[in-house]
């Protein structure tokens, strides 16, 4: 019976296809930005300011998505912006996941003192308003890619700690954990070999969600001018600049906004899709 089931090729599903497709496109665009971008993202051309996208009257060849008020090419800036967004998503997401999931796993499995200490810290941490916290942190650390990543990790590890702790607690109550302990497993090895594999689908789903959130946080910080630096092209920075000229040149605001929206949505949908696919119980 099992063999028959294994033979059925399950389709990937529209969710995984669409979200995976957009993210693949984004990764390719980011990697090949120097080849694909028609212009230097920082080059200004004041004579070519506020050019509309290609289908509107007055568009110029070579500026497919138009230019902003300083005459910088929107498409080029978006491609280079994707690089920063993806670096932040991957690095900040992974670090947040590692720290939060480790602490959550320890709290949920060992309980007792470890749990009390970690849970209290999480409670206190979550009482800070996150965006304000991030702005404060950046103000202290100074702007720059590293500061952004540190700020995201510092704010968001609690999300992982909470969810993974709850999940680890549920799993620890299962009989198979007792069986592992009775067969002479130490606590640490039980945690790693019995609990972790069963919490992994949840961690994976959270990780992709976190990547989307990291992109948003980076955009928020760019929006308040606290991101990497004012002249590096970031989506958040573009949205902030586009806002001031939205009546004259809506495309400066709208294209990065769409990219941001699709990216965050794709990350969360990818996570859900992967969880459905790889969770051993749902499978």
């Amino acid at each position, binding site marked *: *019976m*099992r063999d028959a*089931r294994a033979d059925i090729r399950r389709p990937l599903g529209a969710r995984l296809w669409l979200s995976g497709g957009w993210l693949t496109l984004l990764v390719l665009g980011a990697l090949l930005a120097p080849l694909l971008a028609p212009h230097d993202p920082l080059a200004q051309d004041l004579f070519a300011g506020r050019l509309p996208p290609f289908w509107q009257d007055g568009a110029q060849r070579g500026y497919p998505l138009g230019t902003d008020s300083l005459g910088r090419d929107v498409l080029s800036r978006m491609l280079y912006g994707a690089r920063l967004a993806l670096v932040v998503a991957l690095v900040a997401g992974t670090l947040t996941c590692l720290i939060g999931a480790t602490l959550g796993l320890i709290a949920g499995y060992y*309980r*007792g003192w470890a749990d009390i200490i970690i849970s209290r810290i999480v409670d206190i941490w979550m009482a800070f308003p996150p965006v304000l916290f991030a702005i404060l942190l950046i103000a202290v650390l100074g702007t720059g890619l590293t500061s952004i990543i540190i700020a995201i990790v510092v704010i968001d590890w609690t999300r992982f700690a909470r969810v993974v702790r709850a999940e680890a607690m549920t799993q620890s109550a*299962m*009989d*198979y954990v*007792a*069986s*592992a*302990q*009775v*067969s*002479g*497993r*130490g606590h640490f090895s039980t945690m790693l070999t*019995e609990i972790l*594999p*069963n919490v*992994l689908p949840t961690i994976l789903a959270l990780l992709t969600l976190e990547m989307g959130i990291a992109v948003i946080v980076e955009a928020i910080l760019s929006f308040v001018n606290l991101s990497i630096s004012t002249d590096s092209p970031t989506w958040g920075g573009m949205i902030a600049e586009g806002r001031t000229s939205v009546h004259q040149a809506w495309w400066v605001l709208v294209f990065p906004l769409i990219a941001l929206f699709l990216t965050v949505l794709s990350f969360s949908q990818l996570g859900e899709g992967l969880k459905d696919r790889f969770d*051993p*119980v749902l*499978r």
Partner: protein
Amino acid sequence: MSAQLSVRDLSITLQNGVRILRNVSLEVGAGRVHGLVGESGAGKSMIGKAILGTLPHAMNVTGGQICFGDVDLMAMAPKARRTWIGANAALIPQDPLTALNPSKRIGPQITRRLVDILGWAKTNAKARALDLLAEVQITDPARVMRSYPHELSGGMRQRILIASAFAAEPKLIIADEPTTALDVTVQKQILKLIAQMQAEHGTALLFVTHDLGVVSKVCDTMSVLYAGKVLENAQMRRFFTHPIHPYSRALLAATPTYSNPTGSLAQVPQKVIDGVEQDIRHHDIRNHI
């Protein structure tokens, strides 16, 4: 008959002071089956967990002795104790659906103890696991070894857990209501299987259940537990013919029988319960002074 396991005056208390077990004493003879019966909440499973060292965090052993053969388990360091238990005792758990790790194949879950504790070579352990699966009447053991738990039925999983419990030839197996989660037809098969395996391997078995019918089929000796206190330790035959404690008598009277299938269900009379609870209160007062 020497005792494989003897528990003396074991007390377990919840962190908030509620007593779970009150000076429980019982013995399981080597190669014998000891039944532990009681209502739900009486503390049956906690005795097993205390022996195996898997009590929940909120519970502490506050007194008593657990001797395994000549070894005093309570005097051992936690790590040494885990290894000792791993090599000498095993558990057949209540719910086969949660007792196997859902993310691992069956094979490694059976051989783990052999490889980890007894230091067997992987190929030997695998051969042993295949033999055991055949012994618990699983068809196509090789395929089952490669399966994930969710691909198998509850009855099959319980067979696997039984095979796994006997894998390292432990001296003691604790079966914690091994048939409760299964449907009636499968229950009977599993019960027969456990009894058969126990007889063939000569393992001492502590059989936790709330079903007197089950006890009468498989056990040699038994204890009746109520609210964390042992009311009666008895030889099986003696218990069913001449129960001593009033609660035991009431319990036997309340068991539905084939000869009286349509009669209304008998209850344990309130007078008996009151008497037992008064005893327990006295016991607690004595122990607090």
